[in-house]
């Protein structure tokens, strides 16, 4: 097993004909992911073709789900239309909606989260790299890749990785893979202040997943999601967790790239998060170069 998605998961891509969506739909197909449908309003009936594979395009997510049985979606729709696209996926009864789009207004996400209350759909992101459950082929081919992460750096195995950031997640995954250690699932939850899935949500899934034996949790300054996850781990954690917090050197009051990465009113500092990690028995990586080694030492 893995969490959230398996190599059998049928994926649709919202915004498959845009340049960004198309590029990553191709890369997911190359990786061996079951990309079964695309959605672009007005282009229903056409096909998205890539190396001999013809992926049908639909006008609505509901049509795509009905015709193909897709259960997960990757949203590559531009910011002004992204909230609508997410809610369309929720309405169509998808199990998982992964919003890659960066730059969605906070107010739109506040409304989306409220509208999603009580639905069975899980949202990951927005402003996230997506997730990867590695496959068994060469360079982890045959896995499920939803989003923009480089598939080939993964390796099938037993470490779960959760992070807000894209490239920092790749860094952790790459450290694991080059040490011969594989991953169960790697999840990027996104750098926005309002997101669908928290560190805690993913940590709980990893703890419940028999195939996951250890976890790397990467956080950053801003908010208190890392503290909440750490507090839960302190009380209920059953597996080794190593952590890293980015932004110890960031000046307060400045937004460090990610909309959510800001220390304001003395809240959300790296120190407070590292302290919460320590209290929960989470192994602290002193530098981002030590993420994999910190966990592997704990698992010896």
């Amino acid at each position, binding site marked *: 097993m893995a969490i959230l998605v398996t190599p059998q998961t049928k994926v649709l891509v919202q915004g498959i004909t845009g340049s960004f969506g198309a590029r990553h739909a191709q890369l997911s197909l190359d990786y061996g992911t079951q990309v079964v449908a695309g959605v672009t309003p007005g282009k229903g009936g056409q096909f998205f073709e890539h190396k001999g594979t013809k992926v049908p395009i639909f006008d609505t997510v509901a049509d795509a789900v009905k015709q193909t049985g897709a259960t997960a979606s990757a949203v590559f729709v531009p910011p002004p239309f992204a909230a609508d696209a997410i809610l369309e996926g929720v309405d169509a009864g998808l199990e998982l909606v992964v919003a890659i789009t960066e730059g969605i207004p*906070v107010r739109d996400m506040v409304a989306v989260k409220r509208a999603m209350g009580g639905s069975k759909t899980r949202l990951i992101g927005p402003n996230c790299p997506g997730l990867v459950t590695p496959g068994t082929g060469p360079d982890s081919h045959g896995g499920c890749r939803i989003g*923009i992460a480089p598939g080939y750096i993964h390796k099938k195995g037993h470490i779960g990785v959760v992070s807000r950031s894209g*490239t*920092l997640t790749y860094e952790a995954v790459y450290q694991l893979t080059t040490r011969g250690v594989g991953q169960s699932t790697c999840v990027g939850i996104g750098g926005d202040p309002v997101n669908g899935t928290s560190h805690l949500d993913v940590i709980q899934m990893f703890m419940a997943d028999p195939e996951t034996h250890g976890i790397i949790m990467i956080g950053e300054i801003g*908010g208190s*999601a890392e503290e909440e996850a750490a507090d839960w781990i302190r009380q209920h954690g059953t597996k080794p967790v190593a952590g*890293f917090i*980015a*932004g110890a050197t960031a000046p307060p009051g400045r937004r460090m790239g990610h909309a959510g990465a800001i220390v304001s009113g003395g809240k959300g500092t790296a120190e407070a998060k590292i302290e919460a990690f320590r209290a929960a028995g989470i192994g602290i990586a002193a530098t*981002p170069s030590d993420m994999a080694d910190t966990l592997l030492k704990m698992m010896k």
Partner: protein
Amino acid sequence: MNIHEYQAKQLLKQYGVAVPPGEPCTTVAEARAISEKLFNAGQKLLVIKSQIHAGGRGKGTFTHGFQGGVKLAKTLDEAVHIAENMLGKTLVTKQTGPDGRVVSTILVAGAEKIKREFYLAVLLDRANSRPLIMASTEGGVDIEEVAEKTPEKIVKEWVDPAVGLQAFQARKIASALGLKGDLFNQACKLIAGVYKTWWECDAAMVEINPLAICETPEGKETIVCVDAKIGLDDNALYRHKDILAMRDLAEESPLEVEASKFSLNYIKLDGNIACLVNGAGLAMSTMDIIQHFGGSPANFLDVGGGASKEQVTAAFKIILTDPSVKGILVNIFGGIMDCNVIATGIVEAVKETGLTLPLVVRLEGNNVKAGQQTLATSGLTLITGDTMADAAQKVVKAVG
């Protein structure tokens, strides 16, 4: 994006929020005209406020020695004298840094007699993804201090975004502030207007500190926003052309403005090791690792997950305009992006900018061997690092 106090008050006024009578101006002649108008309308006392984004204006000092960025004037001559000493002059406050900010606009307003001060703000509560209204009887002071020492003096009301602020919620807040009678009704209307400003303008934060009960020249008590601060959600500015027009580039660092033209996220810091990184998380942790090994980062710079050749060149130019930079660390994890394309971009950028400072490059990811080959055969004297730790230690050593 942040806006000036006078602009915040303009927005609040549009949503029916009471603010003291007054107008912004950029010349002494205008200041005189507005002051005259306000005195003629019955105002006994005026307040003249320097419009800069930094806080601590009241206790600030102008570089020519004039004390105070917010001053009271009892007469027209006083008002003009103050305007002369503010407009075009540089104000230094505890938040501006020693260079200060040039005051190009002042707000001239009626200074009504303040009877009581409160605090009122609307912001996003990240913990439950809902708008939060915070109010306190402790106004005019640092709210973070109130939150720490007397948290019971802060009342909180969360708004359900599906239905918006309900009238009873505004009544709860007004009651908690101890307001009665006409002031209670005025406060309810004002709270609703402040919330509406937050929602309709896509604000990140609306802060009224102080909100105050004032006595008008006619002796009537009213509740008004004496000071106001609004920060906007940058992601939503595309649908607020009017608010975007309020952007004051003079308040932003020129290098940061230049960087934003190339979709680069650059923030200047105080150190001497510049870094150029793809991805916000990796960029933050590159700064951290430089510090970990005893160095000091000169900036945060995220060239984006993709990073094109043009962006890398622009990034180098921006980094090199900072005179305190003594060395550069490039840290790229090319996941999808071809490392050789990045390497070619780095080589071209170095040649184009005539870089002479020590440059440490750490490349990892897609087609990394070709990228390293490109760097090795470029004829440039750059240092390569295998891991982030290796690269960080090398750049710290090179800078000395």
